[in-house]
């Protein structure tokens, strides 16, 4: 059986990347799969995609989807500036940035804010697990007050909420979801990519190795127990309405936006 092709003629496999090197069960791997599904279904041409990232576990993930696309894994917290520059250089590119909570909410906070302020046309995904995984489990700035580290330390600081911050700056697309909720994440990714301007997507993505224990507010069980879906999300791409005007008794072939045709016959 041949693979199903999307409207640019590519199979789902064309949206895969190198094998992941993240931990088995990592929320980021789920997000990668959601990304593959969203990009495949949207029919994004790989050569038009630019995958951008900073430093950290999250920032490795652009290697794990759409291998044929260009990707740029930059320096810590500075993905927004790279993205801004690349977008200015080539306005035809679809900029897709993947960052983490460590990358975004600490060193990257300034660039995150200024990217929103400039409304750079890009999708900015925060794979948010509240912890520094690559350096073995320190708190990040999105860790909730009172949440507990694997070794027992309690976080004494208020978290920085990237969504709240983005909203105060008037960001025109802000969403939060959960890596385990593909039904919600996939349409959100599609909508973010379709959005013109900066789209922020904060996806809670549990770190199975360092932040999946009791006392964590970013563990699978905690997030599942506390996830409240505030909207039934689906993505309906925007197309100009098709208007047809023809005489009664005549037949009219109309091409739809996805390339399919509908043949209409007006009864007399």
């Amino acid at each position, binding site marked *: 059986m041949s693979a199903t092709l999307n409207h640019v003629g590519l199979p789902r496999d064309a949206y895969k990347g*190198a094998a992941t*090197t993240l931990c088995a069960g990592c929320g980021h791997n789920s997000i990668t799969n959601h990304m593959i599904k969203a990009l495949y279904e949207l029919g994004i*041409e*790989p*050569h*038009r995609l*630019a995958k*951008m990232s900073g430093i950290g576990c999250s920032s490795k993930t*652009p*290697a794990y989807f*759409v*291998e*044929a*696309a*260009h*990707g*740029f*894994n*930059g*320096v810590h917290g*500075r993905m*927004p*500036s*790279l*993205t*801004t*520059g*690349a*977008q*200015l*250089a*080539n306005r*035809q*590119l679809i900029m897709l940035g993947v960052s983490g909570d460590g990358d975004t909410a600490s060193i990257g906070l*300034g*660039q995150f804010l*200024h990217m929103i302020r*400039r409304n750079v046309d890009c999708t900015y995904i925060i794979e948010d697990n509240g912890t520094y995984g690559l350096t073995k489990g320190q708190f990040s700035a999105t860790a909730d007050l009172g949440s507990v580290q694997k070794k027992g330390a309690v976080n004494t600081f208020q978290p920085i909420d990237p969504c709240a911050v983005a909203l105060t700056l008037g960001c025109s697309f802000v969403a939060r979801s959960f890596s385990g909720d593909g039904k919600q994440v996939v349409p959100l990714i599609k909508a973010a990519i379709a959005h013109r301007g900066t789209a922020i997507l904060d996806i809670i993505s549990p770190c199975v190795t360092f932040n999946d224990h009791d006392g964590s507010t970013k563990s699978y069980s905690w997030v599942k127990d506390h996830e409240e879906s505030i909207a039934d999300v689906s993505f309906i791409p925007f197309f100009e309405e098709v208007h047809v005007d023809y005489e009664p008794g005549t037949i009219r072939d109309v091409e739809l936006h996805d390339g399919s045709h509908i043949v209409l016959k007006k009864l007399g």
Partner: protein
Amino acid sequence: MTQQIINDLTIQAATVNGSGSQTANLVLTRAIFHMGIPVAPKNVFPSNIEGLPTWYQLRVTPEGHMARSDKVDILVAFNPGTWHQDLKTVRPGGVVIHEEVFSTADVRSDVTYYPVPFAKLAKSKIQNDTLRKQLANMIYVGVVAGVLGIPLEALEHGVKRQFNSKPKAVQVNVEAIKVGHDYWQDNFSKKDPYRLEPMTGKVEGKVLVDGNQAAALGALMGGVTVAAWYPITPSSSVCENLIAYSERFRTDPKTGEKLISIVQAEDELAAVGMAIGAGWAGARAMTSTSGPGISLMAEFVGLGYYAEVPVVIFDIQRIGPSTGLPTRTSHADVAFAFNLSHGDTRHIVLLPGTVEECYEFARDAFDYADRFQTPVFMLSDLDLGMNLWMTPEFKYPDKPFDRGKVLSKADLERLAGEWGRYRDVDGDGVTYRTLPGTDHPAAGYFTRGSGHDEFARYTEGAEAYQRNMDRLARKLETARHLLPAPVVDESTGASTGVIAFGSTHAAVVEAREALAAAGKPVDYLRLRALPLSDEVAAFVSRHERVYVVEQNRDGQVFDLVRLALPSMLVDRVRSIRHYNGQPIPAAAITEPLMQTEAVPA
């Protein structure tokens, strides 16, 4: 009266910054230049907006010396706060034009005074209330013109040049100049030996331009389409000039669409990040900054080096460390820029020595960045960048851009998609890249600052790492032979040589003339790029003693030169260093050389 001194003098105007004195100084400069007399202005200004002392030195020589002189012939004392200090700088026999009310207690008796009631004249003769403070400066232009014999026609030219499209401004300024000129004629008789006379043969075909303006024009000619910057003295005018040029030359006349993106970034980290992102995506991209910005850019520049992304970085050097003296000049970023970032990094550094080279190197820097896929530094300085220099008119580029090794869709089809981003196919260390957006399934690759193999795949492999680092070294070695070669003058046949770079050139040119006149000529090698050319060692081998002259404390290029020499030549090299923030004068070179080279043969 002693013998006349014609067209060979230095005027120093001591004023208060933010008072409009800069306009007056520029009018004076352009008027004298219009007489055919070479001018070399140096503006010494504070890191301040209004109210602090500022000095404008205008040196005039029949030979066209461009270096700063530390001898003042004519002082225009307009600032009561620095009056006594300023008076000390005037050479014996010099002229002092000063505000009449300044205290004459403890004044010198070996200079000629022309006291002028500037404040009173401004009040009684200048009708325009709002511009009185600014126009008061024009009164001293008139007085100086009277003392030196600058014709009114030249002054009018200077005013028109300064206020090119504003006839009303021209009129009020010319009137203010006449107030000063009339006062001179009515109240003084000439008591000093200084005169300016029109001359020919030195300024024809030349223009007055500062290095930052030249660099902006060069960048434009180099095809820059993305520039990101953060304001910092003394580099801001690079991108400000670029913005001005872009409005004229990079705006679609029909649609008004901008054909270049110039972004004022939130800081230098973002500025260089944007430039690197744009360079990666295929634009000719740049940023401009000064020392503190270079410190902030260190991390990203390492990424640019290792991931091999073309970008041009202008460093208009000022005095450090830290905030240092933000409005004073220096060449102390050379070693830092050359090796910027952690790990084994080394960069192409261009060292323009003239305003003309600010233009040419700025243009060519984009070719080098594309050709070698790496950050390229343009190391100018405050003196070169912000002062006006007499320079030959710039040449229109006569060669197409060199975009380097970029594989197009057609190339990839021809290769059947077989390529590796970091594969050294040609053996010169320079590999092929594709640009994002290239419509071929094999075009994409993953750019990263972490370890990677020939196919841009992540690896921590020991051999792959070392192989890549060796190739990067090979790439720089390739570049070394293609960068601007040193300019060597061995016409004196002397056994002593001088090596210098950057704006020190002006002082070396003058020092060589003085040394030759004193019977102690020296050969000269002017460096124009790092890594060092083989010419340097060859030059040293042909001379018994070679002095490396530079504007930093530690002899940074002196060290680099010695490192590049075979051991038996190392002892031949000596160091002359000037690092007080003022542009190096010729005397800083002639004095030590006259001493050390005075040993009888």
